[in-house]
């Protein structure tokens, strides 16, 4: 559990995650390379549907960099503007940069341009102009991550009663990019990160979990502890089962007398730490 919180507590700003939306494969790769050079971690997708999926499943995204003319077969297509409108509505704190080799900036109406933190169009194609725009993207991504980190620290210092906001801030401020592999796969498989607390506690320690809704059940797994998984017919029931499981392991903590090692030690140390926080909160 301390993986995420530990990242929040550290003073450095971890690598920001940039979602690149570009229909052309070579341009996607080029933009990804440019972002890597600026210390960012790119997630590159080719269309608005994939972008929306990533934004929903990957709360670590710090900047959206999108082509505006994403469907070349449609003359005058402005799918990137529609994506920007979606981001502004559903993820208002994520900055958006738009670009186009099809439109010039003055060909887009103000109401479209206002959706972007900045946008650049055809005509800005010299090496120094491209480098300058990429520099601005990188700076914006780092600024976005730093703002989230600061916000998360404020929230952790004074947690709100409604903890749902907290988890997003924690997760966004921590670097999901630092934990490539399992986490990336989980994002793509539709898992969301949420925060729950043990209800008996007056000062609950945040518990970050993966949630995945399926056709007839909801899977929940504690972040960083794959052994703590449960299923329920609803998210509410799954969380109730999770609390039940944690409390069951807590009982076992007291009764267990043999030495523990490996996964069992890791899990029981985590649960002991969690219970300690719970006891302190209740006292």
């Amino acid at each position, binding site marked *: 559990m301390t993986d995420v919180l530990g990242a929040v507590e550290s003073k450095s700003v971890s690598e920001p995650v940039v979602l690149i939306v570009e229909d052309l494969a070579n341009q996607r790769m080029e933009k990804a390379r440019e972002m890597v050079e600026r210390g960012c971690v790119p997630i590159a997708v080719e269309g608005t549907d994939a972008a929306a999926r990533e934004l929903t499943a990957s709360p670590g995204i710090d900047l959206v960099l999108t082509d505006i003319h994403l469907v070349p077969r449609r003359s005058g297509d402005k799918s990137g503007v529609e994506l920007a409108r979606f981001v502004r509505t559903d993820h208002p704190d994520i900055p958006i940069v738009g670009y186009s080799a099809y439109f010039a900036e003055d060909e887009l109406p103000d109401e479209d341009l206002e959706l972007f933190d900045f946008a650049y169009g055809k005509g800005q194609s010299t090496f120094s102009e491209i480098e300058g725009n990429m520099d601005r993207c990188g700076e914006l991504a780092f600024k976005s991550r730093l703002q989230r980190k600061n916000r998360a620290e404020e929230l952790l210092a004074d947690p709100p009663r409604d903890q749902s906001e907290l988890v997003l801030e924690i997760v966004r401020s921590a670097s999901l990019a630092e934990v490539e592999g399992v986490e990336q796969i989980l994002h793509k498989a539709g898992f969301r990160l949420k925060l729950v607390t043990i209800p008996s506690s007056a000062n609950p320690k945040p518990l970050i979990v993966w949630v995945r809704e*399926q056709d007839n059940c909801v899977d929940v797994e504690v972040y960083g502890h794959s052994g703590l998984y449960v299923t329920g017919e609803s998210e509410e029931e799954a969380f109730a089962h999770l609390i039940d499981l944690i409390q069951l392991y807590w009982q076992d903590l007291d009764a267990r007398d043999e030495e523990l090692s490996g996964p069992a030690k890791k899990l029981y140390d985590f649960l002991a730490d969690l219970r300690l926080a719970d006891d302190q909160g209740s006292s």
Partner: protein
Amino acid sequence: MEVSTREAERIFVKLEVNPRHSTHHVAGVVVVDGVGHLPVHYSHGRKGLHGRAAQSFRKSLRLEPKEFAVLKRCKMSRDEYFDIVRGRLAS
């Protein structure tokens, strides 16, 4: 993959996992050579384990799918299981 509650119970008995019961779950630790290594649990409702929960149960026992299928069918002895797990814990 599915694991019925009865199959999970049998696995706990075979591996001599000391079970603890709650409202929804049975949990314990697989003890290898006197040391508790692998935490395992299952839901003791009538529905058993399905999909991801069943896979997680298998992974918690450190078995590959084919090996788990053998264990589930009671075709793997306790010693055979612990030989597999010792190798995995050592690597």
